[in-house]
């Protein structure tokens, strides 16, 4: 019973993969609890699977692998957001199929702009490490207002991308977000900043989850949320670098 009470304490946060019923007063009364160690190790497993998928897609270029990876990854992300209990199964599959997508898209851009993939990888992990340091040391302090700001900006970007995607079917679109002009680069920079700040929310969620002794499967969920943000950040950095180099 206590297990079920704890399982249902998660809801939605600034990061779309987080839930809204995280109750600090309810700890998990069980043998296995969420820890920082476990979450970091599981993030390592997901990163490994993502790299494995990317290597396959990089060496065997196939549009079906790329598009299939993107679609399956999207569906799995939505499912895992609402059913965190199964994150132990869905998160590794998500990481692998997203790796297939990332490998393909990185190869396409690498052929146009040699060296862009390793630059994007370096900058993504560099951002991850520096923000983790700033968070752990207390230099960045996420508050309710911070969460509201990041949530609003993330939601706004999501709506903008959705509108642009729908408009593209009718032969038009929101031009400036894809252009390599000053507005396009400025927009990409803004999106990179928002994606990076979402990492701070992920760190805080994981930290509080471990403090409140949530169930063990939340380690997978925390690792999954970090992966979602990291993949988004990587794609946005890739887009920004492509815009900069196509000028």
């Amino acid at each position, binding site marked *: 019973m206590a297990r079920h009470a704890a399982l249902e304490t998660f809801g939605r*946060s600034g990061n779309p993969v987080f839930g*809204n019923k*995280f109750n600090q007063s309810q700890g998990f009364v069980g043998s296995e609890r969420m820890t920082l160690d476990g979450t970091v190790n599981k993030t390592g497993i997901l990163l490994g699977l993502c790299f494995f998928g990317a290597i396959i897609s990089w060496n065997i270029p196939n549009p079906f692998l790329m598009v299939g990876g993107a679609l399956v990854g999207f569906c799995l992300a939505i499912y895992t957001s609402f059913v965190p209990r199964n994150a132990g199964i869905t998160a590794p599959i998500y990481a692998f199929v997203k790796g297939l997508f990332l490998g393909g898209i990185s190869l396409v851009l690498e052929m146009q702009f040699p*060296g862009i993939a*390793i630059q994007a990888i370096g900058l993504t992990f560099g951002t991850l*490490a520096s923000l983790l340091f700033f968070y*752990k040391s207390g230099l960045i*302090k996420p508050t*309710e207002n911070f*969460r509201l700001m990041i949530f609003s900006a993330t939601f706004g970007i999501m709506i903008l991308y959705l509108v642009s995607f729908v408009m593209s079917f009718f032969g038009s679109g929101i031009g400036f977000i894809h252009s390599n002009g000053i507005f396009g680069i400025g927009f990409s920079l803004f999106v990179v900043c928002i994606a990076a700040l979402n990492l701070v929310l992920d760190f805080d969620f994981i930290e509080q989850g471990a403090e409140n002794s949530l169930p063990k499967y939340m380690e997978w969920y925390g690792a999954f949320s970090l992966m979602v943000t990291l993949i988004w950040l990587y794609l946005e950095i890739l887009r920004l670098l492509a815009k900069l180099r196509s000028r």
Partner: protein
Amino acid sequence: MNSIIFGLLAAISLFIFFNLGKVKASNKQTNRDDRINWGTPPWRKKNPSSKRDSSSGRIIEGEAEEINKD
């Protein structure tokens, strides 16, 4: 050269992540009154200070005095 620099950056960053990630955040981070309450969604922000004000606002401090109707 470009690949080496960014490859090294990625490797060092991952090393930092796997080591620093397992360390508990500083007291400066964890012992705060304004930490995020993950129990509520961001658009339903609780304001504890206004709650406190509304309940404690009715209490008047000081000594009670008898009112003479005359």
